[in-house]
């Protein structure tokens, strides 16, 4: 449908009413079936043997001891995976194939999967996974985003440069107005270096799936993915099977926060079910969720604002390094979103942003609640208080003066619609009993008078 005028609810109908959450009676009674609650006859369990090193070459894999564990069923290695090398954003035509479902020659982060063990019980599979003997040659690793881009840094990627390529540049570029000229003309320059930490999603339910091979050649996949169709498409791609063979069931997730969109478990569990003919459960342990699953991006932001004596930001320059870890996953998307949001809710007439997606030997980072924006908001809003302090204005006034209005152009050149920052700030001030100056109270987000 087209975007346009919206419907208005009837008023006495369900929209606008705080009706009870539909699942809540199921949740409180323990009736909700989460993916780990799918327990099937003959079900085997998958546990991964993983890299203990942040960067290493794999010399040899020896399964002899693992195979001796009572209950061992089968091991999967890179050679078993039909399309082992992929990148998840490849599904929407973005990025280069770079990550392997199972590592073959090199591992690039602690916890990278190498061998998938299938056994009768979870304990047996865990035990066998610990008995997979892997001979490694350790390689130098890099963990800092700026060190990773420096000459001579260990190459994390296969193409040698530890940065994602955006339209021929190692960064995404935004240029609006003339930031250099405006910066020179500014009364003050405020510079800051901000660092967002990598953070674990920590859903109480860990990532997982159960796959049952069906007699018609299909696979029923119970998954706690946040995106059923995306996980289905990725599984079909890695297994090189038509999507008609995959029946994904899910829709109820024990906490996501962006952590369950990487499609890490479904392809391997489906392959395991395919090759063993048994239902296979692959659910992350808590330490896997902590150490292996993707995190929020670590982000370093260098932000420079040119400011007038009136507290108006006339120019902003930003260089951000978004740490994707060993593989880019959804981070190039975060770069785009970061680039689109670096002016925040303010009108900044001159802007120049360079945003890097940097590879390091850290566990891959990916989507998490607000990524691309959360760290930008942190930097921008600390920056606003510094501007207030520098210009002798109070923090409210600086924000009101810079707030965007409907019709203002943002650095990405889309005019602002639905602007309501001023109204939100007026309400917040009222809630905490802060008296705003009359001219601030009189403001609105309506288009500026020309």
């Amino acid at each position, binding site marked *: 449908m087209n*975007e346009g005028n919206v419907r208005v609810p009837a008023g006495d109908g*369900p929209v*606008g009413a705080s009706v009870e959450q539909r699942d809540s009676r199921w949740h409180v009674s323990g009736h909700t079936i989460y993916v780990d609650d799918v327990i099937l006859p003959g079900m085997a369990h998958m546990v991964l043997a993983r890299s203990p090193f942040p960067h290493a070459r794999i010399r040899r894999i020896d399964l002899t001891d693992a195979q001796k564990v009572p209950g061992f069923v089968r091991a999967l290695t890179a050679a078993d995976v039909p399309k082992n090398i992929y990148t998840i954003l490849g599904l929407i035509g973005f990025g280069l194939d770079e990550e392997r479902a199972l590592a073959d020659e090199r591992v690039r982060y602690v916890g990278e999967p190498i061998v998938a063990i299938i056994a009768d019980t979870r304990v047996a599979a865990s035990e066998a996974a610990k008995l997979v003997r892997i001979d490694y040659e350790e390689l130098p690793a890099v963990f800092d985003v700026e060190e990773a881009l420096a000459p001579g840094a260990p190459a994390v990627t296969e193409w040698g440069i530890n940065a994602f390529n955006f339209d021929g540049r190692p960064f995404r*570029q935004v240029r609006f107005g003339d930031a250099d000229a405006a910066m020179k003309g500014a009364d003050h320059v405020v510079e800051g270096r901000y660092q967002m930490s990598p953070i674990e999603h920590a859903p109480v339910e860990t990532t997982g799936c159960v796959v049952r091979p069906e007699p018609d050649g299909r696979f029923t996949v119970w998954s706690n993915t946040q995106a059923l169709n995306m996980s289905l498409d990725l599984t079909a791609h890695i297994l090189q099977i038509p999507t008609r063979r995959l029946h994904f069931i899910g829709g109820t997730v024990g906490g996501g926060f962006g952590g369950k969109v990487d499609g890490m478990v479904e392809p391997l569990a489906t392959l395991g079910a395919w090759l063993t003919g048994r239902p296979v459960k692959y659910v992350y342990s808590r330490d896997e969720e902590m150490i292996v699953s993707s995190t929020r991006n670590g982000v370093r932001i260098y932000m420079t604002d040119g400011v007038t004596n009136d507290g108006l930001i006339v120019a902003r320059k930003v260089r951000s390094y978004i740490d994707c870890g060993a593989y880019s996953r959804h981070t190039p998307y975060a770069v785009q979103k970061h680039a689109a*949001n670096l002016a925040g809710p303010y009108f900044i007439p001159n802007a120049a942003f360079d945003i890097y997606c940097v590879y390091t030997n850290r566990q891959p980072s990916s989507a998490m609640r607000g990524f691309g*924006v*959360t760290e930008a908001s942190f930097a921008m809003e600390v920056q606003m208080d510094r501007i207030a302090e520098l210009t002798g204005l109070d923090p409210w006034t600086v924000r009101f003066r810079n707030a965007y209005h409907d019709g203002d152009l943002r650095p990405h*050149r889309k005019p602002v619609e639905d602007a309501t920052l001023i109204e939100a700030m007026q*309400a917040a001030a009222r809630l905490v009993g802060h008296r705003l100056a009359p001219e601030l109270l009189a403001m609105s987000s309506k288009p500026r008078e020309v």
Partner: protein
Amino acid sequence: MAKVTGRGIAAVNYPTGMNLGGDPTIALIHASTSGVFNISISSVELGQGLKTVLAQIGAEALGVPLETVVLHNDDADTGPYCTGTFASRTTHRAGNAIIAAAEEARGVMLEEAAELLAVEPGELATDGQGNIVVRSTKQSITVAEVCSSAHFVHGRNISGRGIFFRAKSPVDPDTGAMDPDSTEAHACTVAEVEVETETGQVRVLRLTSAYEVGRALNPRLVHGQIVGGAWMGVSHTLYETTAPYYPLIDHAPESFSEYLMPGPAESPVIEAEVLGIPSSNGPYGQKGVGEMTANSPIPAIVNAIYDAIGVRFYELPVTPEKVLRALEERRQSATLEPATAGR
């Protein structure tokens, strides 16, 4: 041991929908013979109340009671395509898709009712209680009767299809010009903190926010996002990291006892007001609220710490160690201005 308090503010915007678009979500609706409306969709519930709010939207748009709407989101065989639950997109996308599907299904339902009541469909209204009413005469018929008749008398298929789709925006490689969002939500948060100068521990006492997130389709669910997100904001600001010695990977937490998050004792008082100004394109004027709720608390808390002790922090999380080191550096630095602590 001294405890000093401070107050800080932060204001944020947040885009609704996948950056650049290109992210379809489709809904199908069909009626049963007795007037139950089944919505099929593949959008995943994460606990935010998606199934609840989508059923509310469906019932509202169909004009039928909420309890007669059943929502199926569990099966990618029977549910049509959804890009996924992320990017504060799903209520917006799926909600709009459901409205479109509901309009089509409702149109067929009213055609059937019009034929039964010998009036024009335009003369009919639904009362939301399971009846279809002729506006002028107040003559009515139940939705159940209409659905039965559609199936067994006139062979009408009361169903509807809806999609929400924004074509993917290109990005100009040189200027970064793009269309990144459907709408923008806004929030302003005021944080009050207490810093214990002996240990460097920060306690967030209160987070007060005003949220402008379009029309709240289910106010308690919106409030739940705000409160849970505010707690996560506290957690991100003061506790959480997978790399306590960033950028090094040493001592990465492996369990809930090592990975620090605030418990119920550390939760601040959280108050929020939702303004409810409708957006121009969300279902019933909604905007996405799921992701943004952790964003404004973070800088608000950091700014409040500055207000309390006069030290500005640029790296998250602001651990007690960082606070204590900063305070000790100030104490040891004779050249500094008198501390602003305690003001």
